[in-house]
């Protein structure tokens, strides 16, 4: 396609007029997923040819794979997918007015005490973030150490070899239908590289990346922790992410090389019309440690199982997750640990809370491959039910091919009991507060691992969720 035609297709010539008239249509790809949409995305991002080919191939893979028959109810998803825009130019997202954000979301920000500027970012209506100056000095410090912390688009542009060496190797497009979809239409996300032996004290926070594409509907993140390096990456926030779209499918790929240590923390609270189908995987090399700390709130259906492939001797993987299923929501979450090398160790700790008609499912896999001698794994999943209508299920899959593996699994289901509530009431504590206290205590073993400001926000959010939960 000649370049001038491409520009016309993209409507880029219209774009300059958007500054004078907000009601003029701005570019967005057509509804639904097609080859044309994929080509438009790639062209708009000015990608190299190999990436376009990669995207197109992924589209074929996506089309060839059936909808998953397991997990949550995806029966109405196809209709949703026909109606969504797979690519919206980020500038357009920024132009959404604060007035368009529903009161419910605004009130939540208010109650959480989130600063005004941050609220607008979270609601997708602001372009500037006031802590940019703080971020700027960190950025210089990191750059001096050779750390790369960029948008995924800039990662591809500025570090093409490093990018291509790892992109799609941890989660290949064939992995699952939604990984294929993401590979075809990905947009936004982070590219992180921590050089050998570099240890970062300050967590890398996704919202530091301002004036760039923030996490989109099809975010793609690639993180490479080189040998002996240490870092912590934080994505998301306990405030609800407000988008008008109802589908989110991210892919997060992480490589943790020999003797390195990495933690990926994500707390997400989606609006309750959202299908949230995310693939998160890490490759953990010799004597390296990978930790996932994953909090899922909101959404209509979340299917998300962070995983650790322990491919080097002595590798350690840890998955800690909290899922909160409110009325009408289904959290189908858990984790996967795959032991490939000898003397690898892993643990999964999962805590779920179901309220009202909410449903939480723990779905986990512990696999010990032939040759992974002396593997050790421990899985603990605890479910808390708030109401009689709440539901929880546990599907722990365990596949072991070595007879010296030590694998433990514990599961518990509890209900908030009348005696617990009476005990707290007899100390003057009102019911809503008592419920929130019990729930906070339930998730405490994981919440205490969070940075303080996130733990505080999470606790406040749970308090709000518990308001009016007792009849």
């Amino acid at each position, binding site marked *: 396609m000649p370049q001038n035609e491409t520009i016309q297709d993209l409507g880029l010539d219209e774009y300059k007029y958007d500054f004078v008239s907000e009601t003029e249509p701005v570019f967005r790809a057509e509804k639904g997923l097609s080859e044309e949409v994929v080509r438009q995305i790639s062209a708009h991002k000015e990608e190299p040819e190999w990436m376009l080919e990669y995207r197109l191939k992924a589209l074929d893979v996506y089309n060839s794979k059936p909808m998953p028959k397991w997990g949550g109810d995806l029966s109405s998803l196809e209709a949703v997918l026909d109606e969504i825009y797979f690519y919206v130019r980020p500038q357009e997202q920024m132009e959404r007015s604060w007035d368009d954000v529903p009161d419910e979301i605004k009130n939540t920000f208010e109650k959480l005490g989130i600063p005004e500027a941050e609220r607008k970012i979270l609601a997708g209506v602001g372009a500037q973030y006031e802590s940019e100056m703080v971020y700027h000095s960190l950025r210089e410090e990191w750059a001096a150490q050779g750390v790369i912390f960029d948008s995924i688009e800039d990662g591809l542009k500025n570090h093409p070899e490093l990018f291509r060496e790892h992109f799609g190797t941890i989660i290949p497009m064939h992995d699952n239908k939604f990984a294929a979809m993401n590979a075809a239409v990905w947009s936004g996300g982070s590219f992180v590289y921590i050089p050998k032996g570099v240890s970062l004290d300050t967590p890398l926070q996704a919202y530091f990346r301002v004036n760039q594409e923030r996490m989109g509907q099809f975010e793609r993140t690639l993180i490479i922790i080189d040998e002996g390096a240490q870092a912590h990456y934080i994505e998301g926030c306990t405030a609800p992410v407000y988008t008008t779209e109802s589908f989110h499918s991210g892919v997060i790929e992480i490589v943790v090389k020999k003797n390195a240590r990495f933690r990926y923390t994500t707390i997400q609270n989606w609006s309750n019309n959202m299908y949230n189908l995310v693939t998160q995987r890490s490759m953990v090399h010799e004597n390296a440690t990978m930790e996932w700390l994953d909090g899922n709130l909101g959404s209509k259906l979340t299917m998300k199982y962070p995983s650790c492939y322990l491919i080097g001797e002595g590798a350690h993987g840890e998955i800690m997750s909290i899922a909160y299923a409110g009325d009408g929501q289904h959290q189908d979450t858990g984790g996967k640990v795959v032991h490939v090398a000898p003397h690898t160790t892993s643990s999964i700790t999962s805590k779920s809370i179901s309220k009202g008609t909410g449903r939480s499912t723990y779905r986990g896999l512990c696999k010990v491959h032939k040759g992974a001698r002396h593997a050790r794994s421990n899985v603990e999943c605890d479910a808390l039910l708030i109401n009689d209508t709440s539901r929880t299920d546990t599907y722990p899959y365990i596949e072991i091919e070595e007879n010296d593996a030590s694998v433990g699994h514990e599961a518990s289901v509890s209900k908030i009991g009348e005696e617990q509530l*009476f005990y707290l009431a*007899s100390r003057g504590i009102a019911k809503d507060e008592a419920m929130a*206290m*019990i729930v906070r205590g339930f998730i405490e073993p994981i919440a205490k691992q969070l940075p303080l400001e996130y733990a505080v926000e999470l606790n406040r959010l749970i308090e709000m969720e518990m308001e009016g939960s007792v009849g």
Partner: protein
Amino acid sequence: MSDASILKIEGLEAKVADEDLPILTGVDLEIGKGEIHAIMGPNGSGKSTLAKVLAGHPGYEVTSGSVLFQGSNLLELEADERSQAGIFLAFQYPVEIPGVSIANFLRTAVQAHQADGEELDIFEFSDILTERMELLEMDVTFAERHVNDGFSGGEKKRNEILQMAMLKPKLAVMDETDSGLDIDALKVVASGVNTLTEEDPEMSILLITHYQRLLDYIEPDRVHVMVDGRIVRSGGPEVAHQLEAEGYRGWSEANSIADGV
């Protein structure tokens, strides 16, 4: 002594909420300000039910009678409101709240006892907690432990006394606080209660116990014997000694209730 009365129970009848079987069959009891009363009785006589009904347990339903606390109708208050009004129940079986530290729990409880809209000063709270723990000769690290989670019987009961010390009730109902304690633990708990009553002579105590031995360490002003859901005899401390010698058999109308002494 109506002016100095803290609690006045008349003709109180109650049952388990979902069942028809009456448990309290007409309790009359009046406790004066600063008085220590003990209710003794065999298993199943309704002692613990009385304690729970006073604290507002939702599993019981009052079918008849009245309870005045400081002259006001106690029965129309919810359990948390009764606590805020000054009633404290020391549980026979304190409940575990995993993941919640005693300090956090107490801060929430003390906050709930503040006058409307008054914010508890966190530093002030911390000072008071330290002072109360010293008074009860408790190690301050105790406050960092999770409420009753994995506690020994003695630790649970001491935790109840600490809560009582923090909330400073006008009336503390102590439901079989002595049960499950060895003699050393019993002495520690009793000394905690005595410390608090010495500090606040106006605090009233209702001890519910099966055994005389607690009354060797906390001396009651009045002792009541409860059988089949009502009080069948009241008197001074000598009643407890009489029971110790004779057992409950003589007091049971049905004469069929096992003698627990």
